[in-house]
């Protein structure tokens, strides 16, 4: 097991390196660089910018060096935790991320929990009671949840919230509670603000999980070992819980791997509508303004989270499934 963990951790390094190359390429894709747009902006304001000044700016930001040197510099800076400076926010990128990462991860974590809590019973019920009304409802929800773009869901829920509850849950806390210490009021306030982003970000993942869990469990329920266990007198409830469910749990555990990117992506979109203080919003603004270094760093953080998530789910999977652990299949 220890060897497995070690191998899996080592495997992350080349993956992250390769991702960093891709991201660096993306950063440098747009024609022109930050200085070009800066100069254009300054000229637009009627300032005179000389060619020397432009060149000076390039040197200042290191944009005149060959690409690979820029890459090496960027990566070694990344490793040192120096994520550069956001051209746009006039703030170190590391600081921007430090401010927003915890709340982003918290939101993703809560949503993941929500996804599990909702998907698990529904998926199991739908499979065990196949073709019941509950199953049809679950299946319908599964289809709808994957078909509705999450920004549309956010808009709809916001409209509902305004109509029936009389408020738009923008942000993740009301100003009077944001810095307050935890008390009942703050908890209620948090509930008031969190439900919407959690539902919106979590719906697609929940729907996907229900479908996967139902399909897997149905597959497993038809396996000979289930009949065999029943023929030995194992009671039905215990049978489902102990045998096929253990196997059908695999996708659940793997979710950490594939739901995490989904949650982060959802955050990008929802943060825009609900003005959440998460990374998503900064990421989007940086893209819209082609502040590619900030965007690249955030993309790197996203990738890191995803890779870590995948690793955790692989480890859980190995812990749960002896076939994976012992290297069969």
């Amino acid at each position, binding site marked *: 097991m220890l060897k497995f963990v070690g191998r899996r951790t080592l495997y992350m390094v080349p993956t992250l390196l390769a991702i960093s190359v891709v991201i660096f390429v993306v950063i440098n894709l747009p024609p022109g660089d930050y200085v070009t747009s800066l100069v254009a902006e300054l000229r637009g304001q009627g300032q005179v910018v000389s060619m020397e000044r432009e060149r000076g700016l390039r040197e200042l930001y290191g944009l005149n060096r060959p690409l690979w040197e820029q890459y090496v510099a960027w990566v070694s800076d990344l490793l040192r935790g120096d994520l550069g400076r956001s051209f746009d926010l006039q703030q170190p990128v590391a600081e921007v991320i430090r401010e927003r990462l915890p709340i982003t991860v918290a939101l993703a974590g809560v949503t993941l929990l929500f996804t599990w809590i909702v998907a698990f019973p529904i998926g199991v019920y739908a499979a065990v009671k196949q073709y019941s009304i509950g199953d049809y409802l679950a299946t319908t929800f599964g289809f709808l949840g994957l078909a509705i773009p999450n920004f549309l869901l956010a808009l709809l829920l916001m409209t509902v919230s305004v109509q029936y509850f009389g408020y738009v849950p923008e942000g993740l806390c009301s100003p009077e509670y944001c810095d307050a210490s935890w008390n009942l009021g703050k908890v209620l306030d948090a509930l008031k603000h969190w439900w919407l982003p959690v539902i919106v970000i979590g719906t697609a993942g929940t729907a996907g999980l229900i479908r996967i869990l139902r399909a897997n469990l149905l597959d497993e329920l038809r*396996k000979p*070992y289930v*009949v*065999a*266990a029943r*023929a*030995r*007198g*194992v009671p039905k409830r215990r049978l489902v819980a102990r045998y096929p469910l253990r196997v059908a749990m695999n996708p659940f555990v793997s979710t950490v791997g594939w739901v995490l990117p989904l949650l982060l992506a959802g955050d990008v979109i929802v943060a825009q509508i609900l003005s959440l203080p998460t990374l998503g919003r900064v990421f989007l603004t940086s893209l819209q303004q082609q502040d590619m270094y900030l965007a690249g760093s955030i993309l790197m953080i996203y990738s890191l989270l995803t890779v870590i998530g995948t690793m955790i789910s692989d480890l859980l999977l190995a812990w749960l499934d002896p076939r994976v652990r*012992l290297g069969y299949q």
Partner: protein
Amino acid sequence: MTESDALLEVNGLKTHFFTPDGVVRAVDGVDLTVPRARTVCIVGESGCGKSITSRSILRLIDPPGRIVDGEIVWRGGQQSGRTPGDGAAVDLVSLDPDGERIRRIRGNEISMIFQEPMASLSPMYTVGAQMIETIRLHRSMSKDEAREHATAMLARVGIPQPERRIDAYSFQLSGGMSQRVMIAMALACQPDLLIADEPTTALDVTTQARILDLIRELQADTHMSVLFITHDLGVVAELADDVVVMYLGTVVETGSVDDVFHDPKHPYTRALLRSIPTMGRGTRERLPSIRGMVPHPSQRPPGCPYHPRCDEAIAGRCDQEDPPVVALGPRRTARCVLYDPSGGPPGPSPASAGASGTAEAGMEDTP
């Protein structure tokens, strides 16, 4: 044969599957008796309903399948302390398939082993965990006692190093080993009846022979009855006391292994026996096979299900009326108009109204 000699009696069992494409009458009127301490083989081609029959006994039929008619009389429960003949008979068909009573029968009074031993063990738990679970379901033992018992059972079925193998997973075992584990698990609670549903089909020939030897040996030791399902006549010859020949959901012939092999009555049994290759037959000679194909159970022909393939079919009779079950001697029946004592002119006869009734009447007449 006295009443209490019959451990299991299946009368007029009908198990149908209600699919969107129509009703599949997978088992359509099966009568059979498993006497105590004897081995009964159900033999037939694939799709004849032999597996469904065995699963119906343990009430393991899932929707869209359902037992629509018949009774399954069980007189077991003796080995677990009670005196022989004392166990009250119970009709398994009347039990709730998820209920407490049938669960106490499953794996305890009646055990079952299956065609694919590897797939019949859950890959998520060790062999031992699954055995201990079964033992503790039916016997009040501590975990350690159950583990000890499980190890002893593994040793009993000839698994080397049982103390180590008990912690193995199914995917770490070979097919033959897995089947031994399944047998050990099945016998752990000393059942009265072992149902073996083609347990050797998925195994290679040498392993097959060893497993058959093991079953025979264990049967001799424990005096349990065995209901063995197979399509392999060679296995039948080796193992059976009694034979039940099935075709398309019905029993066409029953009898002791000697009677059926040396004096087959039903045209289907005869054709089946003819198609076994034997040593010494002319090498240039073509092996006789039964003409035509087994029809799908949903397209069952009217009258005798075998008549389209039967060389002795009587036009106007076999293709119209259900053949009667004719008793030919003690525990010997054939379901064919050729042996119908009433003879009768072609056309529907009143005797065919209750096939199972005829069989029972016949059996009482004979002694």
